[in-house]
């Protein structure tokens, strides 16, 4: 851990003081506001945070208090975290888009005494639940707009808090020492932050992380990727999410790199380009959107440009990753790649604002291998990592040069990973959380006495690469009747990576073999139909067209082939599939509102189809009740064909990855 003259910097406030000395005039934070970038050096940021912190002290924030922080990525909200930590208080960041009810629960559960809100919108939300917040003594806000006329009896702007702090520091010579004493009281084992995770079921749980948890984890992350004060990130993911806390707060404090806050949600790409970040993090969705955007726009490009684009992208597909991985590549291919860099890759990265990105991470969900390879082939060092709030993010990550589309990498520094006999992944590391706030039972469920944490994810160690592969949520993983591991989401994801397949639902738990129901992607398949002279009058007709079945059979076989390459999964290949006559729809309850398939519900609803699949029928008639766009209900009748697929022979490990 980092040292300074005063001793070991084992808390974030101490790190701030250290950085203010060590990096003094290097930028600590930037914020695009009112059209230009405002910059704070580490020394300036220390002054801001100190004034804020002393102000909070004056307002009565005490050691052990909780302070709720609600809003988007704004410098002062990040400062609030450190200002609170300096006094030994614990910040509790809350998702800016959480509904009032959820917010009320978290604030009340955390017993926060102060709330810091970004703007009028959040203040209004807080006011609407004011009667349920029994601990809150004071609300502080960042943006004054619209709040001028509010009752300020228990409300104050952060500016004013800082002013109180500055005045105190100026008028009372002892104040600084008093504050410094508070900072010095902090230790590595103190609670640094409580992050509430919004689980899929039940109430959010408050994950308590100590300074040591966060700092060691962040430091290991920095070492893993050689992050230094020369790097730069843009903070645009929710501040209540552990990833943002590590990337935009902890790692920055550890390494000294600059964190930039965008002007608005709409301008993130633009702002990222302006800053030219070197370290990027995004869920797969963001990368997917970039590719979609690229493809949509290129479809409108002139023929010549399109041809050139396609040529170079194809070339990159062939050689780009090899060049990135520093494998031997023929000179000719290198020269063409260089030309492509000038004509296509460079400009493309420039448009995405990722020209200077040295390390990019994707995590949270499985990323489509095509998407993953696309960015890597352009020369972006995109990697996957696997993490959890309970681990202070890092569990595994892919080291440079060892990149595979379908793994999440090797255990991070100081992290131990093991897979339980029933397939669940467990880890143990310095980042392991202290426990769930006010919930020792849940803590005990997840964390073993010897420090191992159940991730709730099923996975396995890939023998050849030594990387971890995550296949599904552990509770969703089942077994075929012959005992073979069956991971529905793993199979579904593999299917969904084909653009022609919009949704896939896999069945197999406690059955003899694996079957899937598919939804075609209307845009992709209709454009394919147009190119291939397939005539159809309706979605239903297209979905049941024999040639569409042929098309999708190819995809299914492809998935089988890739399953066959994995020892653990080879037995769970798809034997039969069908294409649904209607799109799975959240309005019909088939998908959750976050558009995840509800496997059980679908199985009940399409019971005849399930029966047909497992009883060997080649056609099944079905009538389904549907909800139309205007809310009316009706019945949709159809005859659905079922197709067989041959399993591929398990050919272990010859050309894996």
């Amino acid at each position, binding site marked *: 851990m980092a040292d300074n003259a005063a001793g070991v910097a084992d808390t974030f406030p101490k790190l701030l003081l250290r950085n203010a000395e060590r990096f003094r005039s290097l930028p600590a934070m930037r914020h695009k506001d*009112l*059209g230009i970038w405002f910059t704070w050096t580490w020394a300036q940021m220390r002054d801001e945070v100190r004034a804020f912190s002393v102000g909070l002290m004056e307002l009565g924030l005490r050691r052990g208090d909780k302070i709720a922080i609600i809003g988007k990525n704004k410098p002062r909200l990040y400062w609030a975290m450190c200002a609170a930590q300096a006094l030994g208080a614990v910040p509790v960041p809350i998702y800016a888009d959480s509904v009032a009810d959820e917010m009320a629960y978290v604030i009340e559960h955390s017993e926060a005494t102060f709330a810091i809100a970004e703007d009028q919108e959040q203040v209004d939300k807080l006011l609407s639940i004011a009667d349920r917040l029994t601990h809150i003594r004071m609300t502080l806000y960042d943006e004054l707009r619209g709040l*001028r006329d509010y009752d300020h009896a228990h409300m104050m702007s952060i500016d004013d808090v800082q002013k109180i702090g500055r005045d105190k520091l100026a008028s009372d010579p002892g104040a600084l020492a008093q504050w410094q004493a508070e900072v010095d009281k902090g230790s590595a084992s103190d609670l640094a932050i409580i992050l509430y995770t919004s689980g899929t079921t039940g109430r959010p749980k408050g994950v308590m992380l100590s300074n040591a948890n966060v700092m060691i984890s962040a430091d290991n992350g920095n070492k893993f990727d050689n992050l230094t004060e020369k790097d730069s990130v843009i903070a645009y993911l929710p501040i209540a999410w552990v990833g943002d806390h590590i990337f935009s707060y902890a790692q920055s404090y550890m390494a000294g790199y600059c964190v930039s806050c965008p002007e608005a949600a709409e301008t993130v790409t*633009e702002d990222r380009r302006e800053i030219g970040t070197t370290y990027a993090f995004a869920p797969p969705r963001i990368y997917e959107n970039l590719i979609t955007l690229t493809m949509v726009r290129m479809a409108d490009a002139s023929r010549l440009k399109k041809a050139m684009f396609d040529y170079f992208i194809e070339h990159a597909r062939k050689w780009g990753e090899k060049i990135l991985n520093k494998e031997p590549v023929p000179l000719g291919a290198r020269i063409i790649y260089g030309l492509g860099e000038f004509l296509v890759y460079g400009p493309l990265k420039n448009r995405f604002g990722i020209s200077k990105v040295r390390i990019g991470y994707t995590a949270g969900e499985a990323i489509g291998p095509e998407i993953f390879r696309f960015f890597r082939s352009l020369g972006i060092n995109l990697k996957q990592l696997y993490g959890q709030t309970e681990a202070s993010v890092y569990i595994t990550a892919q080291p440079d040069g060892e990149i595979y589309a379908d793994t999440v990498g090797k255990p991070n520094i100081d992290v131990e990973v093991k897979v339980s006999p029933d397939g669940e992944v467990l880890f143990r590391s310095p980042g392991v959380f202290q426990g769930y706030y006010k919930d020792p039972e849940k803590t005990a469920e997840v964390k073993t006495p010897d420090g191992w944490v159940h991730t709730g994810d099923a996975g396995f160690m890939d023998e050849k690469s030594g990387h971890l592969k995550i296949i599904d949520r552990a509770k969703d993983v089942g077994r075929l009747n012959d005992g073979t591991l069956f991971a529905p989401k793993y199979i579904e994801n593999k299917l969904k990576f084909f653009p022609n397949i919009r949704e896939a639902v896999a069945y197999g738990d406690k059955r003899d073999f694996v079957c899937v129901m598919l939804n075609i992607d209307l845009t992709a398949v209709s454009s394919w139909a147009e190119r291939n002279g397939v005539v159809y009058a309706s979605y239903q007709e297209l979905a049941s067209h024999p040639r569409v079945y042929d098309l999708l059979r190819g995809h299914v076989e492809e998935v089988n082939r890739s399953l066959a390459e994995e020892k653990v999964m080879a037995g769970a290949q798809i034997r039969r599939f069908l294409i649904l006559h209607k799109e799975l729809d959240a309005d019909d309850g088939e998908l959750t509102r976050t558009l995840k398939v509800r496997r059980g519900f679908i199985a009940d609803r399409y019971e005849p189809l399930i029966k047909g699949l497992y009883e060997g029928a080649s056609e099944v008639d079905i009538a389904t009740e549907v909800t139309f766009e205007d809310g009316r209900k009706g019945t949709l009748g159809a005859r659905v064909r079922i197709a067989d697929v041959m399993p591929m022979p398990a050919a272990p490990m010859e050309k894996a990855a």
Partner: protein
Amino acid sequence: MRAPGGPDARIGDVLLSVENVSLSFGGVKAISDVSLDIRKGEIRAIIGPNGAGKTSMLNVINGFYTPQRGRITFRGQTRSKMRPHEAAEGGIARTFQNVALFRGMSALDNIMAGRTLKMHKNLFWQLLRWGPAMAEEVAHRREVEEIIDFLKIQDIRRVPVGRLPYGLQKRVELGRALAMEPDLLLLDEPMAGMNLEEKEDMSRYILDANEHFGTTIALIEHDMGVVMDLSDRVVVLDHGIKIADGTPAEVKNDQAVIDAYLGVAH
């Protein structure tokens, strides 16, 4: 969310009053003998069926039309007509029914143009674009950025307004008017042609402008829901004649108004 003191605390003395104004074009009467006043801090709606003379009234107030008869009193100064630049210098800004933006300029430049009256550095410094001129430009840019931030149009700052969708153009036009820091803001159908969401946004901006900047607002609007929600007082014109004036509730139940909207009268 209104101020705790209630709407009355916001509203002050009469800011502008129009007395017995008549206006006609070549024999066609647009306004006949209409009087109305606008109080400091209020949101005043002018409503009426098509051709009621609403826009003409705004044009009289900001000096674009010269009424044949009547007087206009603004900040205690009475005159028989207003000149456009007098109106502007006196703190009256407006937006137009059909968006009258400077189409060849970016959103930013349009709003900057709204600051013209407040900028004074002479030709010499302008030529150098340095020193005092640059300082002035920067200071006003900051003010304009506050408005851009307020209207949440950061992402279209540099876009020529001609290329913006209608709803955004309206927003930029409001921004340009706000940049004048007006005491009285005349809005001619600020929500015409907008969808529900855009209308909600616009209502919020209007309310915020009224509260945040303390701007007095006179607006013409067709959407009765919006009028009833936003305004403190409503005046109803029909065929150039004032047929009602009062709070939204009073006006809503006025028989003459109901008749005018149903087309019974005349």
